[in-house]
């Protein structure tokens, strides 16, 4: 049976846990109560997906690894998430950014990522790696609701007021270049494709473009022109933001190793 390499499982798990942590920063700070709840629920799904993937990776790697050791005791350069997902919930702190929390940034990021994940989980649920396929089948159901939620808000913001439109477009301009990373396979992705357990994510690009084009057209937003630097977070070369995020996420576990309550 072909099984996905562990580095590939960690790439999927790290994506989910890092975005789960970012979305959870809205807990208690949501722009309205319903969105506070929505983001907490999206985070819960993402952290749940990460747990299943870390558990699988830990069981396969042996050597005493656990889901907790993988989430809390690896350093920033060991993380394999897309750079897009570790960025703060705001763009540059100028212009429209009135605070360090900008909901348009959060929504646009969730949209760009969940539009990819509905396609990737759909493909991975047919993987010959039965354990990965089982996780993908569950995660797909959740990703559909995440996409539904985010795309709805992209349309509301884009086709809303002058200010909401401008903020949504600014968030899109800020985040879109980071999606280039989706389409450049890492060593782990290449190994997963070679093993037969994963699909080449580049084959999903046309479908992703279609989802994005469809939603942006309805939202009256403009897809930014992208060229230049391609981020390499999934290869362990991150922005400085990941270290701060992990500092917060891992601090308690590292201060009290093996702590239980």
């Amino acid at each position, binding site marked *: 049976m072909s099984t996905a390499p562990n580095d590939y499982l960690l790439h999927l798990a790290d994506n989910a846990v890092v975005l789960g942590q970012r979305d959870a920063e809205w807990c208690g700070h949501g722009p309205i109560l319903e969105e506070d709840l929505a983001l907490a629920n999206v985070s*819960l799904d993402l952290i749940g997906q990460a747990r299943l993937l870390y558990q699988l990776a830990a069981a396969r790697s042996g050597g005493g690894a656990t889901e907790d050791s993988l989430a809390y005791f690896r350093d920033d350069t060991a993380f394999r998430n897309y750079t897009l997902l570790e960025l703060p919930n705001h763009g540059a702190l100028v212009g429209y950014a009135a605070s360090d929390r900008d909901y348009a940034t959060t929504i646009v990021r969730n949209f760009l990522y969940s539009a990819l994940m509905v*396609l990737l989980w759909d493909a991975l649920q047919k993987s010959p790696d039965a354990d990965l396929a089982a996780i993908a089948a569950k995660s797909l159901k959740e990703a559909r*609701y995440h996409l539904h939620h985010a795309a709805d808000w992209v349309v509301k913001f884009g086709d809303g007021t002058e200010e909401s439109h401008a903020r949504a477009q600014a968030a899109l301009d800020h985040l879109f270049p980071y999606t280039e990373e989706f389409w450049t396979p890492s060593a782990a992705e290449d190994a997963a494709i070679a093993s037969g357990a994963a699909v080449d994510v580049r084959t999903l690009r046309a*479908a992703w473009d279609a989802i994005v084009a469809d939603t942006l057209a309805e939202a009256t937003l403009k897809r930014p022109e992208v060229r230049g630097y391609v981020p390499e977070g999934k290869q362990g070369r991150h922005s400085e933001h990941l270290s701060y995020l992990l500092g917060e996420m891992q601090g308690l576990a590292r201060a009290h190793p093996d702590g239980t309550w």
Partner: protein
Amino acid sequence: MHATIDDIWSALDHLTDPEIPVVTLRELGILRDIRETADGIEVVITPTYSGCPAMGQIEDDVRASLRQAGIEARVVTQLAPAWTTDWMSDEAKAKLRAYGIAPPHTTPSDTSVIRFVRRADTRPVACPQCGSTNTTLSSQFGSTACKALYKCLDCQEPFDYFKPY
């Protein structure tokens, strides 16, 4: 005394979902199977949403009930096939409605058309209070990940809708 599979089902039949105490784990399809294996009896449970915080409690409840009934069995978690709201019995759906939660529609059959997923499900959701289908979605996510928040435009009551999953 050696407990039969039927004995175990009845020992666990009273267990309800910690967050929706009117429906049992069996009716929800979370308690999936009880089977004899070479190493003894296995009680199979399946998670609903990946991050459902009730799963830990559910597993503890199952173990406690087994212990109380003096039954030796292992509790195992199985992911595939993925849990779906389609496994919910009609009886369970009726209980949800009586409790004030609109029960889930069947999952949309053509989920492959991902591009239009946003507009795929336009089926009306009936208000569990007054039965009106003149209702509107307030939020994709309600009190838990498995529910959406709706409002009835006739009786003006807000209510939870158990989402098709």
